[in-house]
């Protein structure tokens, strides 16, 4: 049933991205929240606890002893058919890792937000995407957002996608720890959450643990059976690509904000297109707009849907460039091209004779500062590469002391 666009009364609140997520969880009437604190995610579940204590959200809050338990508790709850939520970051996400596979394998539509953070050792509480990128192959649908408003919106969209009977996969919503998680922005939140609940109604009809109709969850599948269930996940993931697109459009019709797998600016006649993701996009966008007004042929794009990977959209959005520069904030150690998104962009163009060249740049590791000046330097370098006609076959580790690229 399509929700009709109504006159929505909005509240304009100053919210950090963490709080925006908590508001979305409240407005979506989530039933079970499992919580374990980890910087910089903690204020998400703190705020949710406040909502529950104040009677604004009727949910069960489970305090657990680790992130492994946090996701396990959410899995148990979700298996009974209810709407479950949890949030984490960094080491917490790593500790959850085996449960990530279990949740997607059991096809439980849990939504989890990740305030991305660098990994130990050495200890860094600051931001990069090493944690989130490590979950690439866990069969979680993964969206990366770039503002507090978008985080609110993405969590709403996430439940609608996750609980769709055709999908039934968990969704991870990632955003920059600190840079976004603790930065306050104006966020529009509907005064009456009914509109959100009608947009993403709960799906209680899925297969679940129910005493009136017993089933077995968590079975063993021998070599004659296992592969078929994994192939089901392959298909569901690919179906999700279309589903996310549909939900984005539906969301636009109801709420008036439009999201895409990949967002672009100034790409039409650009020779160089930069591609990045998360909060850093704002800096890239601002820098590229200025360069454009100076007549430089440079465009910028932001990847929002990371898994499933929108390969066709990438080709459409970036195919007109001569050089695509992918700025990653995670390292796949030991790989010649070490940027996870760069690798995926290259594989999207594989076998296409008219494909642009792709260059991989690693920035912002452990929240190493990325400013408009950094972006301008990368663009300068990209144009020099075009002149020379020789694209580096290895990732560039931009800004490491002692490493210089001529």
């Amino acid at each position, binding site marked *: 049933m399509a929700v009709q666009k109504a006159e929505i009364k909005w509240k304009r609140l100053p919210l950090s991205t963490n709080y925006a997520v908590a508001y979305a969880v409240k407005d979506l009437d989530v039933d079970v929240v499992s919580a374990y604190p980890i910087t910089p995610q903690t204020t998400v579940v703190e705020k949710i606890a406040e909502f529950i204590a104040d009677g604004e959200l009727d949910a069960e809050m489970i305090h657990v002893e680790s992130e492994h338990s946090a996701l396990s508790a959410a899995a148990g709850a979700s298996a009974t058919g209810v709407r479950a939520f949890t949030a984490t970051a960094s080491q917490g996400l790593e500790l959850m890792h085996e449960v990530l596979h279990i949740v997607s*394998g*059991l*096809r*439980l539509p849990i939504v989890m937000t990740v305030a991305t953070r660098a990994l130990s050792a050495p200890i860094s509480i600051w931001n990069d995407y090493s944690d989130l990128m490590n979950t690439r192959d866990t069969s979680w649908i993964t969206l990366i957002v770039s503002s507090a408003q978008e985080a609110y919106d993405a969590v709403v969209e996430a439940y609608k996608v996750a609980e769709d009977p055709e999908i*039934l996969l968990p969704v991870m919503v990632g955003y920059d720890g600190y840079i976004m998680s603790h930065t306050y922005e104006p966020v529009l939140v509907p005064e009456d959450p009914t509109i959100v609940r009608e947009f993403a109604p709960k799906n209680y009809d899925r*297969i679940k643990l129910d005493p009136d109709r*017993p*089933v*077995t*969850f968590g*079975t063993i*599948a021998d070599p*004659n*059976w296992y592969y*078929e*269930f994994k*192939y*089901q996940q392959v*298909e*569901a993931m690919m179906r999700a690509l279309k589903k996310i697109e549909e939900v984005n459009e539906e969301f636009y019709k109801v709420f008036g904000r439009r999201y895409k797998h990949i967002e672009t600016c100034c790409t039409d006649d650009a020779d160089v297109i930069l591609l990045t993701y998360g909060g850093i996009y704002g800096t890239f966008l601002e820098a590229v707009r200025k360069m454009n007004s100076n007549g430089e042929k440079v465009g910028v794009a932001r990847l929002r849907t990371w898994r499933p990977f929108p390969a066709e959209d990438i080709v459409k959005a970036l195919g007109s460039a001569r050089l695509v520069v992918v700025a990653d904030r995670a390292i796949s150690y030991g790989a010649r091209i070490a940027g996870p998104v760069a690798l995926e962009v290259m594989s999207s163009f594989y076998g296409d004779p008219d494909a642009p060249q792709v260059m991989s740049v690693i920035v912002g590791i452990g929240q190493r500062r990325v400013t408009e000046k950094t972006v301008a330097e990368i663009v300068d370098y990209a144009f020099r590469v075009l002149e020379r006609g020789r694209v580096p076959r290895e990732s560039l580790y931009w800004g490491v002391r002692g490493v210089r690229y001529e």
Partner: protein
Amino acid sequence: MAEKELPPYNKLPPGAVVLEPGNMAERYTGDWRIFRPVLNQDKCIRCLLCWVFCPDDAFEIVEEPYTTKTGRRYKFSLKIDYYHCKGCGICVEECPVNAIDFVEEVK
């Protein structure tokens, strides 16, 4: 007995959930065997100890009268269900008259 044809991926419930109870009977465990118990109907005295001890319920009592070479007559016989028999050898061990041979599976 050969393996039954298994359903394609799109006919299986998501998440490997088992929707109906009591479905272990459908599970093909016959290919676990390295040794196969073979019952000698002539030696067998129908004491049913094998039937009692078999952990897989793989001994079936069938209403087929049998007369041994020495003239003993039985009203029923025993059959081994090789679709489920895992070849554990417990029946071979328990048989008081050594009526069950344990033969290597050769294909």
